[in-house]
């Protein structure tokens, strides 16, 4: 049989973002894979050197819309590492709360997309339906669905008032119940088993060699979790497990993510509990950042986010290095995709939960001839936010 080259990308429904995978196939078996990235490169590191530390928080938030807590959190950790600043306890709990809510929403997002990729749209719709509740919680905590803008050097910018907490706990209870149902439906489906078990195996050694992180590594039996290894914020004070599974196939990656979601719900619950009583400020005033260098990291939903900041005593960094988890996870596909059928290779590509924007860090109607008499939906949306707030405030 002749060898064909299948271009996955730059625009392909499998990829939400523009990316280019060149799969060499023999019949339908993938024999080689070549990754070409750079379609998302926006030069974050370059721009960041021209922004102050506070401005940079908003910039790094826009590295990726799904990890929009992890990057700012890792960045403020890095700056705090330079300045050796301590964070108030209440702020630490809020950071952990937001970080774990993000993990729940991201894992639900992945579960849904994975369903979509193997042609199971019902799973997609169900997962995203419950994800909306998590986004509602975000709207209450931070005021926005994505891009929360809540991290600051030395604390957080916004408090979680005690009177919203019962409402949040109620939403969390529903999400947990629905998640259990979804997990059972996904984990017990025999067709899903036949589709995902033993597919795209990444051995432990390959994961170590590629320096893989996050659920990709943990599903291959590599026990690394920044939350356990270097507990920052409130991670040292809450009780949770790092999920590690041995097989390294797509199914294990799914299970790791599902189980992690339950752990995250547990953490969120503990944080909300503490926030009811924990007094104190939410922001330590950091006057200046001394010259020096610092490393900050955070366990994002996809793995360890790494930020390195070097300062010279001025109000902006002279070097800001960002390394997102997908940057080290995507190369593992080269190992796990070889020699398996195309249909499997594609779900394997998706199983590392690739996030290319991270990897490369890098209303007006034009035609105004007629006035449009439609209900102003922006106004409606504002009203809905108000209503939700009222409902949750009780």
């Amino acid at each position, binding site marked *: 049989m002749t060898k064909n080259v299948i271009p996955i990308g730059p625009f392909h429904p499998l990829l939400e973002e523009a990316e280019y995978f060149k799969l060499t196939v023999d019949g339908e078996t993938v024999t080689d894979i070549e990754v070409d990235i750079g379609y998302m490169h926006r030069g974050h590191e370059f721009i960041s050197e021209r922004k102050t530390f506070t401005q940079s928080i908003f910039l790094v938030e826009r590295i990726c819309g799904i990890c929009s807590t992890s990057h700012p959190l890792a960045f403020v950790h890095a700056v705090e590492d330079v300045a050796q600043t301590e964070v108030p306890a209440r702020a630490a709990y809020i950071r952990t709360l937001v970080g774990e809510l993000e993990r729940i929403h991201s894992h639900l997002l992945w579960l849904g997309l994975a369903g979509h990729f193997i042609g199971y749209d019902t799973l997609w719709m169900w997962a995203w339906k419950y994800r909306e509740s998590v986004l509602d919680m975000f709207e209450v905590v931070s005021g926005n*669905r*994505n891009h929360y803008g809540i991290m600051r050097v030395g604390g957080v910018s916004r408090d979680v008032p005690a009177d919203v907490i019962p409402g949040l706990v109620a939403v969390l209870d529903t999400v947990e119940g629905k998640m259990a149902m979804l997990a059972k439906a996904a984990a017990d489906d025999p067709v899903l088993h036949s589709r995902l078990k033993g597919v795209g195996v990444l051995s432990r050694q390959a994961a170590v060699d590629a320096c893989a992180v996050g659920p990709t590594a943990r599903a291959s039996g590599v026990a690394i979790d920044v939350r356990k290894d270097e507990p920052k914020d409130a991670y040292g004070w809450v009780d949770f497990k790092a999920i590690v599974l041995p097989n390294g196939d797509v199914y294990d990656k799914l299970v790791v993510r599902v189980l992690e979601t339950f752990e995250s719900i547990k953490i969120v619950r503990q944080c909300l509990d503490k926030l009811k009583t924990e007094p104190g400020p939410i922001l330590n005033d950091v006057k200046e950042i001394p010259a020096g260098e610092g490393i900050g990291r955070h366990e994002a939903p996809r793995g360890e986010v790494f930020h390195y900041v070097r300062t010279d005593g001025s109000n902006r960094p002279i070097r800001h290095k960002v390394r997102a988890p997908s940057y080290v996870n995507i190369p593992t596909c080269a190992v796990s995709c070889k020699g398996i059928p195309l249909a499997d290779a594609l779900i394997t590509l998706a199983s590392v939960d690739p996030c290319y924007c991270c990897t490369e860090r890098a209303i007006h109607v034009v035609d105004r001839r007629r006035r449009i*008499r*439609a209900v*102003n939906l922006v106004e409606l949306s504002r009203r809905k936010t108000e209503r939700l707030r009222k409902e949750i405030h009780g």
Partner: protein
Amino acid sequence: MGWYNKRLAKSLWVFHVSASPCNNCDIEILDLLTPRFDVERFGIKLVGSVRQADVLLVSGVINQKVAPYIRRLYEQAPRPVFVVGVGTCPTSGCCFKESYNIVPRREEIIPIDLYIPGCPPKPEAMIDGIVRLIGVLRG
């Protein structure tokens, strides 16, 4: 053409062009299809091939590497086709204006008919934008 435009307004098939975005608009676009917002009730459908698209949803500042592909996608789409810019990035360039890898004049790459600002725009705002496009089509 009035009759045809009405049919078109009721059946907008959307192709999603991500031109170096931060992913956020993209997942909010997907969010539009999911139970809470469900744009299928307006007849809007996400298609995988640009040959079948009526609306190109462009999200993100266009970087230099992806620009030729965006141009080619626009040329491949069968007319009539509308281009909607989702988010602050296609509108103004957001915080990436200073970067070395960005196309300075986005409208030269792909002429955008409708901008939906916001970072990211709430799904309600996107529905609002699309409803306005439908309103224009209906005359």
